[in-house]
Each structure stands twice: as structure tokens, then as C-alpha cells.
């Protein structure tokens, strides 16, 4: 009764564990599923934030770095019966003195004597000893006289210079030669300083002139380069400075000082080339001064007018001043102009000169010796440049850790290395082949270097990383970690509670 009289005990609080989501098991599942997703996302996060850096064939590049192109060159000495002894002695001397110079310049030099020791190939030349004073080149043969005491020395000297002309090249000559490119654009411009002043060349037969005077050269150079040609006429192309007034033979004239020449091109007001492609451009300018500035001469350092009317800007192009032209320049009137342009073009492309005292008997502008020397030189330069580029790619990828390396870069590097190997293989049989392979390697290695995907990620200081990640992740991580800690504590408590009654029971 007493029990009945006693006030009913307050109904126990709702058992939280009955609510499904508050049941311990479910709650733990929910928390675990959050963590599960976070952990599942980790690889994704890793993948999306890491940079794709494929491995490059470094060891291959390193091995190639030690190698150099070495074109074989064979010189065959010939002479008439009575000169056999000369031939014999000279042959040894040639081999002895030229080999070191040639080797230092990427040639493996051999000398032979007699008419039938070796077949004529691309790398083989004849030196014919004759009774004459001068030296003449014809095809791949050099006819040289041998009737003076110092002739032996002269032969060796000449053969060295004609085989490796780049040895005796000065820095300024090296300076003006343009970088190798498989394609060039040649821009011919006829600029009238002021056509309204009277004396002006209003038109020119440039297409015919190019065909007549330059076509042969283009054909000869086709193993090295392709040329695109454009031309224009401008009627108002003012100078940016006032030429100096001078007197030549009691007549008023104007002159360009050596300093004026460096600023002659008024790039702010002359549009000299279209920008239709990314090929390097060589400019050839025929400048007609206005009647106020006419005649216009080039001055030397003393301020005296020189007989020259043309100059070269290194790696840029050539300029020719034409005083008092007819209003229309026909092909024949352009002969002198285009011979100057021709000369300037060869200078800029690096076609070597023949050694002093050697004359050409060929109709072409330059001999096979010269062309071969240029091809060998360009092949060697391309080979070295391509190697340098490949090694700098490898070096930069190591140095800059944020730089991605994609599949196309890997492929281009691979192909460039193949092309370099092919060049090495081709060089004993044909230097033209070697040039083509090395040019290919240069193009490929440059393309790999300039791959748009190779742009490194921006530098991101450590503080910035904390500043970016903390607001994002700290707010998410805090409840997640707190929930785990709570669960662990609750679990341990429950376990202790479960163990305690057991212990108490055992004590009883």
C-alpha cells in the first residue's frame, strides 16, 4: 500500500538510445561514414594537386652530351708525273698539319695521293698540283701552282682555310651571321625618303630581279634553308635624323656618319616586314634619298665620303643607298642593287669567303667547297645547340620542382634524341643528311622546351598555404576530430561501466 501511496516516480527520461540516429551504433556509423569519405577523397586530392612530371631520358641525354659530330673529309693530292715526289711529300705534310686543326673543328681529315685511291664522295676533294701562279677552284677540285719555294706552305694554308673557314673567322664576322632556321623570310623594300620631292623610284621589277639574280643562290642553298619572299614600295619613309652636309668635288652632298648607320633604320615610321609568320626575317632595303638629301654618301671616321653605298646590320639585313634613280627600275637597272643584296644575303647566312688568292671558275656564286663547309658548320652548330637545349630541359626540370613534364614533352625529347643519334649515324656518309637530322633535332628540342604545358606553377609561400587551407579545413576538421574523441571517451566509459558490475559481482 505504502508503495501505492507513494507518489509515482517521475517517468524516466526518454531513452536516447531508442532514437535511431542516437543509437550508439548508428551514431558511430554516421561518424565513420564521414571519415570514410574524407579518406576516400584523399587520393583524389593527391592526384589533383600533384604535378604530372614524367621522367625524361636523362642518361641518354648525358651520354649524347659527350658526343660531337665529326664529318669525314678526304683530300686527294694529284699531280703530273714529274711532280710525283712533291705529291708524296706534301701528302704527309698535309695529314700532319691539317688533322689537328680539322679535328678541333669537328672534321676527321685524311689525305691520299694518286688518282685511284678513293672514289669521289661528298666529303672528298681533289687538290691538283699544276704549273701555275694562282689557285683556282672548280667543283670540288683545287688547282694550285707549285713552282715557288714557299709553295708547300701555301698549299697547306689554302687547304686549311678552304676546308675550315670558320677557324679564321673574327668575332664580328661570327656576330653578323643569323641563327640557323630552316625557313627565312626575305623582305625586299624600296623606300623613297620623300617621293613628292621629285627624285623617286616609284616602281621596280622586283619579282623578275629576284628570279634573275637570286634564284640560283636559293637553289644552291635549298639543302640548308627555305626562303619566303615579300616586297614592298614606300613613298614616304623619312629619316629620323638629319644627314650631315658635306662637299664632294665642290658639290653639295650629304653624308651618313658611322654612328648614323647604326640608327639609320627608322623603325618607328617604317613598316618593313609583315608579321605573317614566326620565321626570322632578313631585310633588304633600297633607300632613295629625297632631293634635299641627295646625293647621300656613307662617310668614314674622318668624315670623308667613301665609295661604298651599302652596309650590313648584323643579323638584321642589308641596306643600299641609291642616288638619283629613274622612276621605274627595270631588271637590268637593278643588277647592281641585287648583286649587293646577294652579297649581303650570303654574308648574313654565313657563306664563307674563299681564301685570299683563290679564284672560282664556276658560274655559281659560291663553290662546292664553300657550301660544304657551311653545311658542316651548320650541322655541327645545330647538333650542339640541340644537345644544349635538351640538357637545359633536364637541368631545369630538376631545378624547378613545380615544372610539369607532360607526355608531349617526353615524346619530343625522345624524338630529338633519336634525331641526334640519326645525325651521328648519317655523318660519315653524308653531311647534308646529318644537317637535316640535326636541324630536325633542333626543332624538336626547341619545341619540347617551349611546350606551353611546361609553365611552372607559381611560387606559393608557406604562409599563404596556411592562410588558404586553415579557414577551409580547420572548420571541417574540428567537429570531425572532436566527434571521434567524444566517441572514444564514451566507448571507454561504457566499457568501464560494463566491467564494473562484473567486478562487483565477482567481489560479492
Amino acid at each position: 500500500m505504502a508503495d501505492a501511496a507513494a507518489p509515482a516516480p517521475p517517468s524516466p527520461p526518454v531513452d536516447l538510445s531508442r532514437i535511431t540516429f542516437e543509437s550508439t551504433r548508428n551514431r558511430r556509423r554516421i561518424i565513420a561514414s564521414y571519415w570514410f569519405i574524407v579518406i576516400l577523397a584523399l587520393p583524389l586530392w593527391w592526384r589533383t594537386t600533384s604535378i604530372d612530371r614524367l621522367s625524361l631520358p636523362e642518361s641518354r641525354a648525358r651520354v649524347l652530351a659527350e658526343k660531337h659530330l665529326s664529318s669525314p673529309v678526304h683530300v686527294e693530292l694529284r699531280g703530273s708525273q714529274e711532280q710525283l715526289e712533291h705529291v708524296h711529300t706534301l701528302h704527309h705534310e698535309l695529314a700532319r698539319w691539317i688533322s689537328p686543326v680539322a679535328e678541333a673543328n669537328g672534321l676527321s681529315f685524311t689525305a691520299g695521293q694518286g688518282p685511284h685511291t678513293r672514289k669521289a664522295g661528298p666529303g672528298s676533294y681533289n687538290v691538283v698540283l699544276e704549273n701555275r701562279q694562282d689557285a683556282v677552284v672548280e667543283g670540288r677540285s683545287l688547282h694550285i701552282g707549285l713552282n715557288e719555294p714557299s709553295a708547300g706552305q701555301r698549299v697547306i694554308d689554302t687547304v686549311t682555310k678552304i676546308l675550315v673557314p670558320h677557324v679564321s673567322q673574327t668575332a664580328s664576322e661570327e656576330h653578323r651571321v643569323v641563327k640557323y632556321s630552316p625557313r627565312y623570310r626575305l623582305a625586299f623594300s624600296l623606300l623613297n625618303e620623300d617621293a613628292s620631292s621629285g627624285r623617286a623610284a616609284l616602281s621596280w621589277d622586283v619579282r623578275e630581279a629576284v628570279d634573275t639574280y637570286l634564284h640560283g643562290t636559293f637553289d644552291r642553298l635549298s639543302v640548308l634553308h627555305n626562303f619566303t619572299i615579300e616586297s614592298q614600295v614606300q613613298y614616304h619613309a623619312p629619316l629620323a635624323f638629319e644627314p650631315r652636309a658635306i662637299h664632294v668635288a665642290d658639290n653639295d652632298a650629304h653624308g651618313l656618319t658611322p654612328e648614323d648607320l647604326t640608327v639609320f633604320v627608322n623603325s618607328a615610321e617604317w613598316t618593313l616586314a609583315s608579321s605573317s609568320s614566326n620565321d626570322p626575317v632578313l631585310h633588304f632595303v633600297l633607300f632613295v634619298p629625297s632631293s634635299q638629301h641627295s646625293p647621300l654618301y656613307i662617310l668614314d671616321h674622318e668624315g670623308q665620303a667613301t665609295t661604298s653605298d651599302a652596309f650590313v646590320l648584323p643579323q638584321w639585313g642589308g641596306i643600299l643607298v641609291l642616288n638619283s634613280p629613274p622612276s621605274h627600275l627595270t631588271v637590268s637597272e637593278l643588277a647592281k642593287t641585287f648583286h649587293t643584296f646577294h652579297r649581303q644575303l650570303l654574308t648574313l647566312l654565313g657563306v664563307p669567303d674563299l681564301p685570299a688568292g683563290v679564284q672560282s671558275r664556276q658560274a655559281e656564286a659560291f663553290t662546292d667547297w664553300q657550301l660544304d663547309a657551311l653545311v658542316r658548320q651548320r650541322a655541327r652548330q645545330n647538333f650542339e645547340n640541340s644537345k644544349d637545349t635538351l640538357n637545359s630541359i633536364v637541368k631545369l626540370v630538376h631545378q624547378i620542382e613545380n615544372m610539369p613534364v607532360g607526355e608531349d614533352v617526353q615524346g619530343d625529347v625522345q624524338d630529338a634524341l633519336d634525331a641526334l643519334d640519326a645525325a651521328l649515324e648519317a655523318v660519315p656518309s653524308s653531311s647534308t643528311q646529318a644537317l637535316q637530322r640535326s636541324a630536325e633535332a633542333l626543332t624538336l628540342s626547341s619545341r619540347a622546351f617551349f611546350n606551353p604545358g611546361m609553365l611552372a606553377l607559381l611560387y606559393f609561400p608557406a604562409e599563404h598555404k596556411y592562410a588558404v587551407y586553415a579557414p577551409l579545413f580547420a572548420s571541417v576538421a574540428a567537429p570531425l576530430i572532436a566527434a571521434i574523441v567524444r566517441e572514444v571517451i564514451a566507448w571507454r566509459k561504457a566499457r568501464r561501466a560494463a566491467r564494473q558490475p562484473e567486478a562487483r559481482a565477482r567481489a560479492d
Partner: protein
Amino acid sequence: MLILPWLSAAVVAAASWSQRVHAQNADQEHAVRGFFNAQSGSVSSHTNNWAVLVCASRYWFNYRHMSNALGMYRTVKRLGIPDSNIILMLADDVACNPRNKFPGCVYSNAGRSLDLYGDNIEVDYRGYEVTVENFLRVLTGRMDPSVPRSKRLLTDDRSNIFVYMTGHGGNEFLKFQDNEEISAYDIADAFEQMWQKKRYNEIFFMIDTCQANTMYSKFYSPNILATGSSEIHENSYSYENDNDIGVAVIDSYTHHVLEFMEGIGKTSHKSVQDLFDTYSFEKIHSHPGVRADLFRRPLRQTLVTDFFGGVAQAEVLSSALVSGQGIPNTTERSHAQEAVPEKLAMVNAVEAYRTNATSGQTSTQQIEIVRTRALDTAAMFESYARGEQGSFSITARAWASVAVAGSLIAWVSRISKH
């Protein structure tokens, strides 16, 4: 039988000649080396000039940054760099801003005497194209194949490049368009990549922004000369307002440099040291810095026109080469050969002339002073950048933040227990 002694004489002659050849080669090598030393010592060995001019900030109130960049554009163009060799990046078009009272014009002085926009201007990157990425692509040349020639920096190892940047910056960064920034490390890495690919001969880096000198502190590639408008923790100020335009029209440092440049013609012999000598706090209201430790030539002999001008050398073709009628025939060939030394002598004379003109007032003492000053600033930045203190404080901060987060978690779990 007379031939034998003759032949032996010839061989002896050949032998002695060869010795001479070796001696000659040595001589030649010496001469070549001397020439190159002279090149690196005084006359620049470049054949073409390029300029990259960047205005990195947009909005009307940054009018002065646009006119900074345009002022430099006008100057490099006046001194002979063709438009095809200038990459001009302008983040905004203030000339056509509706708030511009003088549409189509950008002035750099209060009297509005000089319109920088003019009628012949070629902006290569404008508006939203001016990004950090595009700037780095221009420098490194990593472009899509479809990008036109006018937007490319087609330089080689004979190119001198002038890089000018202006905008809002801070310690080791420069803001682009108010939403991203380029750091000193990025530019330094870009220059290194250019060096590796032989994309420059020399670089002259100039920057006008707050704490500008920190921007060149990370450079590590050779042949870079750098100058900036202000030291670390120092602002770079504008020069003057125009009341009709209503905003500041140019920055103090750039105004000062441009004023110096106005006194320079295409054939001027002023050296970059002359420019640096004109820097003063009174005129600029900040402390401009110079960094020359990576640069190999003495500043006294480095002409301003080596970076702002057009071409350095011209070679006169001697008339013998030119007078040919018909395909150059044999006689002309020989003439050509004879003419070569004369031509070379002329080139040498040009060089000697320039050297003399510049070395006129050279005083080694001054150069040394400059060197030490430049080195001092460099060392200062370097110690600041990589000092152990710096890295320690970074780690300390990191651990502190971990501790804060930990205590936060502990606190949450305590509360939930109660």
C-alpha cells in the same frame, strides 16, 4: 735532281710555317679572347634590342600606372626599338575610359603637354590578357603555336632586353589586375629559363612599385642589371595630379627616369651609371636601388642605349664587294679578300671610339663604391630571405597553430563531456 734540295727546303718551310701557325693560332686566340673581354668589358655584344613593358593594374584611379608604361613605350620607341620588338602589356584602357575627360589621350604631366597615346601605338596585351601567366609565357616563350608574332618575345643570345614593370606591389610580389600576384621567385625562375635557352644577352630590369627593390632580390641568373624605385617597407609615390583628369598622372620614380631619358638621343654616350647617379631621395621621395652583382660589365661603360636603343653596330660593305657587274667573278673575289682587313679595321675603330667616349670619366673608385653598395643591398635581402630566424619563425608559427587547433578540439570534447 735540282728538285730534291728544293723540296726539302719546302718541307722545312712548311714545318716552320706550321710552328708559326700554332703561334698564330695562339695569337689569334689571344686576340679573340681580348676581343671578347673587351666586349664583356665595355661594348655590348648584342645585335638586337627588345622591351617588355608591363602595367599590371587596372581601374581609373591607377591612371598613373598606364602612363608610366606608356611613357616608357614612347621612350624606347623614340630611341629606336621597333614596335615588333616591344611587348606592351596594359591592364586597362584609360584612354577610352568614360571618366577620361580627354578621350583617346593619356597624359603624363599636369599641364597635359605630352599625349603619350599619340596616333601610332601598338598594345600587344590589354585588359584581361594581362595576367601573370601570360607575362611568364612571354618571357619563357612557352606559347601556343597559334599566338601571333607580335605577341611573342623572339629573342636570342644576342638580344638585350629591357623589362619594365609597374603596378601595386609589396614585399616580393606585384599584383596583377587586383586578383593575382607574381612573386620575385617567379620572375627569377623565368629569367633563369631564358638564360638556359639562350634567350638573352643582357637584361635590364626596372620596376616601379611599393617595396620594388624586393622584386629583384631573388634573381640568380647572370647578366641581369636591376633597378627599383623603393626599398623594402617603403612606398613609391605618385608625382603629380592633373586637376582636370582628376587623378595622379605619373609616378615619381618613373617621371624621374623619363626626364633623364628625354636628354638622351639615339647616339648618346650616357651610361646607366649616369642614370643611377641622378637618383636622389629629394626628387623621388623613396630610395631607389640598383643590383649589379649579376651584371658583368662596369656600369660606367654600359650605355643607356645598349638597352633603350636600336642597333649597336653597322658594317659598311666595302665598295669592291659591291661594284660587281654580273655574278661576282674571279677578280672581284680577290678584291673582296683584300678588302676584308679594311672593313674589320673600321669595325674596330667604331668600338674603340665608343670605348673612349665612355671611359672618359671612368673612375675605378666610383665603380667600386657602386659595387659595394649594390652588394650590400643584395646581401641584406638575401639574409632576410634565407636567415635561419625566418624559417624558425615559420615553423614556430606552424606549431603554434597546431597547438591552437588541438586545444580547441580538447575544449570542445571537455564541454561535451559535462
